[in-house]
């Protein structure tokens, strides 16, 4: 059976379209790069200032001047471009970024995301997340459906929000859920998972269409 993180990353990857500019957050989102479908070419932006980021370098070919937003050594592909942080966030906030994939702590019935702090426990800071959610054309959340047995898809976020802009798609190890004005629609279920199980594992109200297909995971 596929690992939950791989399943999420594979399903997200299917959403990416040829030519899109994509920013992947830390954690599960980073894995998405491994599953881009054949025939689809996307460009990866990293908010530390590059478009055209390539895979990790071979051992011995690392360069301290070329890292990604996690601080890891990366490579640059032909046609890559470097820019300073002001332009990098100009791209993000200005609507020039097609897709961002981010991790999440909670998403609520309005599609609002909380992903940058747990008051009193962990305060890493928002980094680029607030700009990404505010500015990207499409925001996808890649996260496990539950954490420590508790649903991460909630009626209303009790953690501090990342933005008041609703996300466009939530992909978990159990389901694909689309926030709409009417509420959260259950679009797909993971292989081997029942609609009832998803409902049971979800705090938020889910709108259930007549047919809920199984995730495709090419």
């Amino acid at each position, binding site marked *: 059976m596929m690992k939950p993180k791989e399943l999420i990353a594979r399903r997200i990857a299917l959403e990416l379209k040829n030519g899109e500019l994509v920013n992947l957050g830390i954690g599960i989102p980073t894995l998405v790069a491994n599953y881009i479908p054949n025939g689809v070419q996307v460009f990866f932006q990293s908010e530390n200032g590059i478009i055209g980021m390539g895979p990790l370098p071979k051992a011995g070919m690392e360069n301290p001047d070329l890292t990604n937003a996690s601080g890891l050594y990366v490579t640059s592909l032909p046609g890559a471009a470097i820019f300073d942080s002001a332009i990098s966030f100009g791209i993000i*906030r200005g609507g020039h970024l097609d897709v961002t994939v981010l991790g999440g702590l909670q998403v609520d019935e309005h599609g609002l995301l909380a992903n940058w702090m747990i008051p009193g426990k962990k305060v890493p800071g928002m980094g680029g997340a607030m700009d990404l959610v505010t500015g990207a054309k499409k925001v996808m959340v890649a996260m496990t459906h539950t954490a420590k047995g508790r649903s991460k898809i909630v009626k209303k976020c009790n953690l501090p929000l990342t933005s008041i802009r609703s996300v466009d798609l939530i992909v978990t190890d159990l389901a694909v859920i689309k926030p709409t004005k009417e509420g959260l629609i259950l679009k797909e279920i993971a292989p081997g998972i029942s609609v009832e199980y998803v409902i049971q594992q979800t705090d938020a109200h889910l709108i259930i269409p007549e047919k809920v297909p199984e995730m495709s995971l090419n």
Partner: protein
Amino acid sequence: MKIIQAIEVVDLIGDGSTIMIGGFLGCGSPDGIIDELISNRKKAFTIITNDTAFPDKGVGKLIVARGAKKVIASHIGTNPETQRQMIEKEIEVELVPQGTLVEKIRAGGIGLGGILTPTGVGTTVENAKQKITVDGKDYLLELPLRADFALIKAKRADYYGNLQFALTARNFNPIMALAADKVIVEVEEIVPVGSISPDDVHLSGVFVDYVIVGGRK
């Protein structure tokens, strides 16, 4: 532009100064300058920087060495020591969204009184900030940031202080160089005037006060 030795920053930069430090998780940070500040036990700085890197890297080492009084940054999650000092109230931490942080610094450097950004509207970032509606959309008025010193890293300078950065080591460096009373740049080499084509200069030497030649870490 004046060429100085790294040790000279110890006299230049007084305890308690407000300093901007370039770099992104340690990539493109002026490590030689940071090391001098640490070995000479400089302290009580207000540090404006994107992140506090890792405990053993870049500005992270200065945090571990108790050099900070206050940190203004977008992310401190990769340095547990910053978290600890914040939670135990040894330092104050002000978190600013990354895109807002860079525009606040840019505004401070180029004479703007502030900028309006949609980022942070409706979140805890709003705080007591003025909200301004333009064309029916809400924005936060974010005010300029400046520092006494900007400590930045470039790949090379010429003898006029014209700078070239390398790859993602560019990040906040050219923007911070706009916004400090004194700009100190650590480079790997100084090249002759005229050897960088005018089109290839990433930041004009007019923004640079001191250049230090340091080794590649």
